[in-house]
C-alpha cells in the first residue's frame, strides 16, 4: 500500500487552547528554545500562566505534528537546545485565532454596552 502523508488542514479554525495560543504568540516574533519559551509565556501572560515542562513539550509535539511549528538547530547551540519557529501554516492559524478572538470581543463589548444602556433606562 502506498504511504500517503496527511496534509495539515489550514481551513479548520477550531478554537485553540490558551497554552497553544501563547506558544504560537511567543514564536511569532522570533525562534525560541524550550526554556526561553517557558519564560516568555510567563512574561506574555503577566505571570498568570506558567507552563510545566511536560505540558510545554506535549503541546510542542502536537504543534510539530500539525506542522504549525518546525524544529531546527541553531548553529551556535548544542543539540539539547533545538529551537522552534512558526511555519506559514502556524502563522495562518494564529491569525485565524486572533480574528476569532477579535470577533468575540466585538460581540461581547456590544452586548455589554447594550445591557448597560438598558440598565440606565430602567
Amino acid at each position, binding site marked *: 500500500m502506498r504511504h500517503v*502523508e496527511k496534509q495539515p488542514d489550514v481551513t479548520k479554525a477550531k478554537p485553540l487552547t490558551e497554552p497553544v495560543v501563547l506558544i504560537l504568540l511567543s514564536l511569532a516574533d522570533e525562534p525560541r528554545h524550550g526554556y526561553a519559551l517557558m519564560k516568555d509565556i510567563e512574561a506574555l501572560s503577566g505571570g498568570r500562566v506558567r507552563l510545566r515542562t511536560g505540558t510545554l513539550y506535549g503541546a510542542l*509535539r502536537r504543534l510539530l505534528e500539525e506542522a504549525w511549528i518546525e524544529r531546527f538547530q541553531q548553529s551556535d547551540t548544542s543539540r*539539547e537546545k*533545538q529551537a522552534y519557529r512558526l511555519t506559514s501554516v502556524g502563522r495562518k492559524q494564529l491569525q485565524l485565532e486572533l480574528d476569532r478572538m477579535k470577533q468575540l470581543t466585538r460581540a461581547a463589548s456590544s452586548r455589554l454596552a447594550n445591557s448597560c444602556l438598558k440598565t440606565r433606562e430602567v
Partner: protein
Amino acid sequence: MSAQRVFAVLLYLYPYDYAALFADEMITAFQHGCNEHRSQGRAPFVRFVIAELAGLIIRMPAEWIAKLTTDTSTRGRALPDLRKMRPAGVPYELWFAAAGMNYRQTSLPLEVAQAQERVTFLMNAMVHAINNHDFQAARSYSYEEYRHRDKVELLKKKYRLEQ
C-alpha cells in the same frame, strides 16, 4: 537521588519516540528551572520540583494515548523515522553502500559528503542507543556527532560551500 535524576527516570516511562526527541531538551529546561528556583530559596525550589514531577506524571497517559491513537504518518512528521535507522547486525559499509553511490554522484566534494554521511550515521546511532535506553552510548554518539558537525563546517569553509 537528585531531582534531575528522578525527572530523567520518569521520562523513561514516556513513549520511546517522544523521549528520543524531547528528553534532552526537557532535562535541560528542568535544570534551568531548578537553578533559577534554588536561588530563590528552599521552599520555592521544592514547590517547583513537586509541580514539575507531578506534571510529568499527569502528562504521561496523555502521551501514550496520543502515540496509540495518532495516525503514524502524522506522528512521523515530527518524530525520528525509525525505518531509516540501520538495523542491528547490518554492517555500516553495507547499510551506507547506496548512500555512497549517491554522494559520489553529487556535486559536493567527496570529503564533505563523507563527513555529512558520518554525521547522519552518528545521529541515527544515537537515536538507536536512546531507544535501547543505553544513555551512556547515546552521550558518546552525541559528542562524536558534534565533533563531526564542526568538521563538516570546517570542510565547507575550506571548499567555500557556506552558501
